[in-house]
């Protein structure tokens, strides 16, 4: 359901996950317009939503690496790792990919 909602407001699953965790840069004008429509917010709810969004935008912006640490997201068991040597090599490359800013 969340991924359907993400698609409806123009975000990919990764972008939506960041937005949900507090990375407010994903909530641009498109999202500010479509979220109230998709959720069917009333006039007063829309007003409250816009006020909360304005508050969030004025706060210190968060990025992915403010929310998670490399240690926390270190792979413990990998799917499709091609043997143990590949697992070692892959671990750092995976973490680099996980922490690469979404474009």
């Amino acid at each position, binding site marked *: 359901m969340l*991924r359907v909602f993400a698609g409806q407001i123009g975000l*990919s*699953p*990764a972008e*939506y*996950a960041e937005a949900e965790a507090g990375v407010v840069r994903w909530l641009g004008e498109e999202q500010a317009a479509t979220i109230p429509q998709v959720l069917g917010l009333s006039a007063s709810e829309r007003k409250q939503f816009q006020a909360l969004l304005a508050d969030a935008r004025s706060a210190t912006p968060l990025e992915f690496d403010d929310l*998670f640490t490399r*240690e*926390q*997201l*270190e*792979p*413990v*068991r*990998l*799917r*499709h*790792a091609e*043997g*143990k*040597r*590949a*697992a*070692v090599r*892959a*671990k750092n*490359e*995976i973490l680099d*990919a*996980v922490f*690469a800013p*979404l474009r």
Partner: protein
Amino acid sequence: MSYHYQAKTDAEIEQTAAAILARFPKRRLGLAVDIEGILEDLGMDLLPRRGIRPHAEGYLARDPRIIVVDEKIFTYPPRARFTLAEEVSHLILEYELWKGGRLPVGADSHELSEQQHFFVEKDAKSLASALLMPAAIFAEIFNAKRRELEAAAAPELHALRETLKHAGEIFQVSPKAAAVRARKLKLITLAELKRLLPDS
């Protein structure tokens, strides 16, 4: 003492799957198991990211509340569901890895012997398969469809393919995953599996 993973028997895998499914009886989508709902009930979060797929489709993180997945897996939901089921299976099969602040000595993926690595992955796949395709109901659906097609005089291989496609749709898994499960439950022979999946 170095970490040792004790490989599970088929019976242990089936019992474990049955226990998990009994614990979450409402997490169903028709006959399919709502694996994302079960993850949610277990207090786990999915974290979709980009660029992981060259190495993995998903993985269980050091923080056991988080399964990191490549966002591209959601383009084919049956495969995504299997990936999620496999990752939660790792957590269930090796829950002791996440008990302390650090991994036990020798427990990291690259520290396991090839044999240990093989069993860790094999058991996680088997448990994922048993979770998504519960034995009794899967066999019932599979046999009913196969009998129906055979009664309609469908050619044997075609009937098998259609049966697996049907089971895949019912349980929201790929036909390949359904074929492997059917073989595990002895609903098809090894020769039939090889005809269906020549690369297996």
